[in-house]
């Protein structure tokens, strides 16, 4: 017992405020220490989890609430807070023709990037799930684009998709197509930007889906094979329904990330204003937040836009969740 207590002294020195060595009575010291230890067990855990809550309060919760507050005022980047104007900022943003255009662009880029991405990732995961030679080589290989920064991706692809000397137009020329005005044409620019997103994220999502696929019990495949299901049939009737929760997760997270796209369209732009093309043909909502706030110096409007984007993100994430559940749920019943 006393030995344990002395360990406690040594062990506790780092964090517990213990009395000096000259405390008069051993027994009193012991109970004090016991009391300290009980206090430690009771309250220290709060201390350990508190950094997260402090930081979240400062950079998560407070800003979100404060964004709503700022959005109700005239608020200049330099001059600071002005008059209370109610929902005027929201009206101004909603009436701005570029807002609707940016929303449509954001959706268009999102759809063009997420659907092919999920389909290819699913196929890729299926390939990687086979007993391959050099497994970790392939897995690492498909992940290389993930460590390239979006800014770098945008610059490189901006060059590859060059309107005049671009490699992709060159290649299309071999089969008699084009040249396509990637930076001018609205849909073409969306395809180019979606390609960047797909390039960076497909391998990553394939690995997440692969992890889920490996957890599918082998017996299911065996009994499916006994029932005469071929490999393709097995993939759609066993694998896909079994990894449904992961598929949902991938789709919802890519929604949250995809709708906030910023670096790719901004750096794809070759005009000096960098607002998403000469006619804002590939401007996105997050770019509009930046444009209002830090170019036009109107933080009120920027906040209103940020809140509108937040609502859009939440709504689409929920919609996607419901939709995917439905679609993959049908696969399960079949």
């Amino acid at each position, binding site marked *: 017992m006393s030995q344990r*207590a002395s*360990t*406690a002294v040594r062990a506790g020195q*780092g964090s517990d405020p213990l009395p000096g060595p000259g405390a008069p009575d051993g027994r009193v010291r012991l109970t004090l220490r016991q009391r300290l*230890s009980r206090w*430690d*067990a*009771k309250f*220290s*855990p709060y201390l*350990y*989890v508190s*950094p*997260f*809550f402090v*930081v979240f309060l400062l*950079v*998560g919760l*407070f*800003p*979100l609430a*404060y964004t709503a507050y700022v959005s109700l005022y005239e608020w200049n980047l330099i001059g600071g807070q002005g008059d209370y104007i109610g929902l005027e900022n929201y009206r101004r943003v909603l009436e701005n023709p570029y807002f609707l255009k940016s929303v449509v662009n954001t959706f268009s880029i999102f759809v063009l990037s997420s659907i092919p991405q999920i389909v290819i990732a699913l196929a890729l995961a299926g*390939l*990687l799930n*086979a*007993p391959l030679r050099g497994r*970790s080589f*392939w897995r*690492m*290989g*498909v*992940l*290389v684009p993930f460590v390239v*920064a979006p800014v*770098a*991706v945008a*610059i*490189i692809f901006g*060059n590859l998709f060059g309107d005049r000397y671009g490699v992709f137009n*060159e290649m299309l020329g071999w089969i008699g197509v084009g040249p396509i005005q990637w930076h001018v044409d609205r849909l073409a620019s969306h395809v180019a930007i979606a390609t960047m997103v797909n*390039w960076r994220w497909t*391998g990553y999502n394939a*690995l997440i889906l*692969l*992890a889920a696929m490996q957890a599918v019990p082998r017996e299911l*495949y065996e009994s499916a094979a006994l029932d005469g299901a071929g490999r393709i049939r097995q993939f759609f009737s066993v694998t896909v329904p079994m990894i449904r929760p992961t598929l949902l*997760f991938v789709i919802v*997270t890519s929604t*949250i990330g995809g709708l*906030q796209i910023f*670096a790719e369209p*901004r*750096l794809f732009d070759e005009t*000096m204003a960098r607002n998403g093309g000469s006619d804002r043909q590939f401007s996105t909502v997050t770019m509009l*937040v930046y444009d209002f*706030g830090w170019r036009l110096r109107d*933080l009120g409007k920027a906040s209103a836009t*940020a809140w509108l*984007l937040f609502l859009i*993100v939440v709504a689409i994430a929920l919609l996607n969740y419901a939709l995917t559940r439905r679609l993959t749920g049908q696969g399960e019943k079949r």
Partner: protein
Amino acid sequence: MKDRPGFLAYGLLTAFLLGSLFPLYWSFLSGSRTQEEMSSSNPPLLPGGHFFDNASRVLDTVPFWKAMGNSLLVSGVTATSVVFFCTLAGFAFAKFSFRGRTTLLVFVIATMAVPTQLGVVPLFIVMSKLGWTGTMWSVMVPWLVTAFGVFFMRQYLVDAVPDELVEAARMDGCSTFRTFWNVGLPAARPAAAILWLFTFMQVWTDFFWPLIALNSDNPTLQIVLNQLQSGYFKDYSLVLAGTTLATIPLLVLFAFTGRQFVSGIMQGAVKG
């Protein structure tokens, strides 16, 4: 049941891999040629000998080394802080019982869905009041501890550390912090390495917030690339040499730690 994959599978994987590597190859190729060579009607398909010329022009145009230093500092400090505080909190959630534990944990998970990127306006107002805009504080402090990190470490430590071990340490008189230090941290090492790498990469590649909070005199690498791209007349050889230079550090890191990245993602590391 599953037979060995055939040529088709390897062929498709190889095609995918080539597609993944081609843009990087192209970046280096263009960065090692001159602007004239690249804009000829028959652009070359092999790297040339001008990479160092182009790179030195990059160093003349933008504060590249300063940006590299800043990126290393910001990513390194943030990743280390995230690992420490998230492991501590994750250990507390996993192994100490305290009132309100479940509620607080659910709250942590819920916050992962909040797109903090949309709080940039108030964050900017606060940072300028503190006088931190333009300094590295503004890009480090907001991400010193993350919800994802807490959750990730908690999930790992729940299984990695047996409850008996924690009880034994407490019986031996270890304080809770000592228990964390001697029992939790060593057990957390594999997951902590993964969390460190992911955070490092995320902070390194971040663009939106640094663009708002920093200025061109004291930038990070992403900001410098943005500057290069914004030149009045665009010399793509110069820009792509810079892009290659700025991408190399993460590629080197990946070459040594690719396995951790792969296993991290497969264990459920999600994008932030």
